């Protein structure tokens, strides 16, 4: 234990990183499941169903498949870059995640008070953008190195798209930054506490609704998601920049994509949706029970499901899951944990909603054509975002007078 107490900072950071990574990867996996389910239901299918109850084991199966598939690398490709590209995208994606605070509370690990964020910096926002702006390389290099025209075209498209939309993405949050006057996530969130007219939370989405829309649209484009998923437009260029990638390298791109999705959603939450703040006033103490109750209800529902609809392995599975849920629920009832969880709960809830929105969009909207995409980005989104910035600046100045 001596060592730990000595280098507490280091150890704590390592632990946090480990936890975050684990969480991120798992969540990613289950995001795919969730998305497939959702899209399936939107398209009046049921989606994954047979691998485990409700296809709950589908992600695991996919993971295994990725691991055990043969790792092809084309002889004519540029080996080094070919391997570098996926690494780059994944690393950068996860790194940005490290800057996101998930809650206000300070918990104590090994007698070391720490916050719910891996890297705490006052310029968090800037850093996130800085890092995410490098993410382009993953795509670009992947396409170039795999020495195939589909890949090259795909990567050119996607990197062009990412760059174009990065501009409006950055511009759209300037309004918020102007309002808050800081790059620090914590301050950004706390600035959104309180109410307008005693009922409307001071979330910046309301004054910055235009900014929010711009942000969300360009975020979708930035992460190459439908309806802006031209880079992997199957109908046109097989699978875009990662056409030539297989097994684990492909998985990296895959994970990176979902991680980016989470990141931008987190950013949206923090910037516009009041981060971990609950929508309800402080004095409604009953709201503290919402997470616990939610978990318990889920557990009960699952138990009922297991009891009546399933049998065999699937049933055991469901039972296990429901027990997990119940256990968590009970844990969440304990006062200390309850307090800690609050922020995280609200935060994750909002993020989840946004991601739901993502999936929803994918399920409903048709894909853009490339020129449409570009003209939309440069001729509509960018000017609007700019106008928003200017207007906001003027209003703020006017207010201060």
């Amino acid at each position: 234990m001596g060592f730990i107490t000595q280098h507490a900072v280091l150890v704590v950071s390592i632990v946090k990183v480990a936890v975050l990574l684990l969480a991120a990867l798992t969540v990613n996996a289950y995001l795919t499941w969730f998305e497939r389910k959702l899209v399936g239901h939107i398209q009046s299918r049921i989606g994954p169903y047979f691998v485990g109850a409700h296809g709950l084991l589908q992600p695991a199966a996919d993971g295994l498949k990725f691991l055990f598939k043969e790792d092809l690398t084309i002889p004519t490709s540029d080996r080094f870059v070919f391997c570098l590209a996926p690494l780059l995208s994944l690393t950068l994606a996860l790194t940005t995640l490290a800057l996101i605070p998930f809650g206000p509370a300070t918990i104590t690990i090994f007698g070391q008070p720490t916050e719910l964020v891996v890297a705490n910096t006052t310029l968090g926002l800037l850093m996130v953008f800085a890092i995410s702006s490098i993410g382009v390389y993953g795509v670009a290099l992947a396409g170039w190195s795999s020495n195939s025209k589909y890949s090259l075209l795909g990567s050119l498209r996607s990197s062009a798209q990412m760059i174009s939309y990065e501009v409006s993405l950055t511009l759209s949050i300037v309004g918020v930054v102007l309002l808050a006057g800081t790059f620090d996530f914590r301050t950004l969130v706390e600035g959104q506490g309180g109410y307008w007219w005693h009922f409307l939370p001071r979330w910046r989405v309301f004054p910055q609704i235009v900014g929010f829309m711009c942000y969300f649209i360009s975020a979708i484009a930035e992460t190459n998601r439908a309806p802006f998923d031209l880079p992997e437009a199957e109908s046109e260029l097989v699978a875009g920049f990662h056409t030539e990638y297989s097994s684990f390298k492909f998985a990296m791109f895959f994970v990176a994509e979902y991680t980016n999705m989470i990141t931008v959603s987190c950013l949206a939450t923090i910037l516009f949706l009041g981060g971990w703040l609950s929508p309800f006033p402080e004095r409604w103490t009953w709201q503290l029970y919402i997470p616990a109750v939610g978990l318990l209800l889920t557990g009960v529902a699952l138990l009922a499901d297991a009891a009546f609809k399933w049998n065999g392995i699937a049933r055991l599975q469901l039972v296990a899951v429901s027990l997990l849920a119940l256990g968590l629920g009970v844990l969440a009832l304990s006062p200390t944990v309850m307090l800690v969880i609050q922020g995280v709960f609200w935060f994750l809830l909002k993020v989840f909603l946004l991601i739901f929105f993502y999936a929803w969009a994918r399920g409903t909207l048709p894909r853009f054509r490339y020129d449409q995409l570009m003209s939309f980005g440069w001729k509509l989104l960018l000017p609007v975002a700019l106008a928003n910035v200017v207007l906001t600046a003027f209003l703020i100045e006017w207010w201060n007078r």
Partner: protein
Amino acid sequence: MSVPVFMFFACAALAVLGAVLLIVVREPIHSALALILVMAALAVLYLLLGAEFIAAVQLMVYAGAIMVLFVFVIMLLNAGVEERTNKSLMAKYLGLPLAGFLVLDLAWWIAKSTAGKAELTASAVPAQASSTIELSRMLFKQYLFPFEATSILILIAMLGAVVLARRDS
């Protein structure tokens, strides 16, 4: 050896490595990657120097925009491995000595400079956020005119690039 010193040497090593690679590597895209490495390392050094904003801008603009442009052009022109012609005897024979001289000059200068001796201590560190705010203040008050001038410069550059790159027929 304290953390900052370690950080410095790590990044410095990376930077120099990148620079050397940039020169020796013959595939343009590899050179570009090497340069990106240098820039990343420099960004970290900026953080070390307490210039967070500059670090961010370095990554965002330099690594994120300018170098992407380079990579684009390389991909676009499908620039192959560069051939090592030696038409310029001057560069061939005088190149290295000249560069060496230059570095010597600079080294000498650094040796003479007094500002360099200052140790990078916590006291000298301006509070980061405030430093960024200060920076913006200077940019929009003291350096307003240069700022506007550069904005116009950028505009002109954009137009120029468009005109040059458009393949009109």
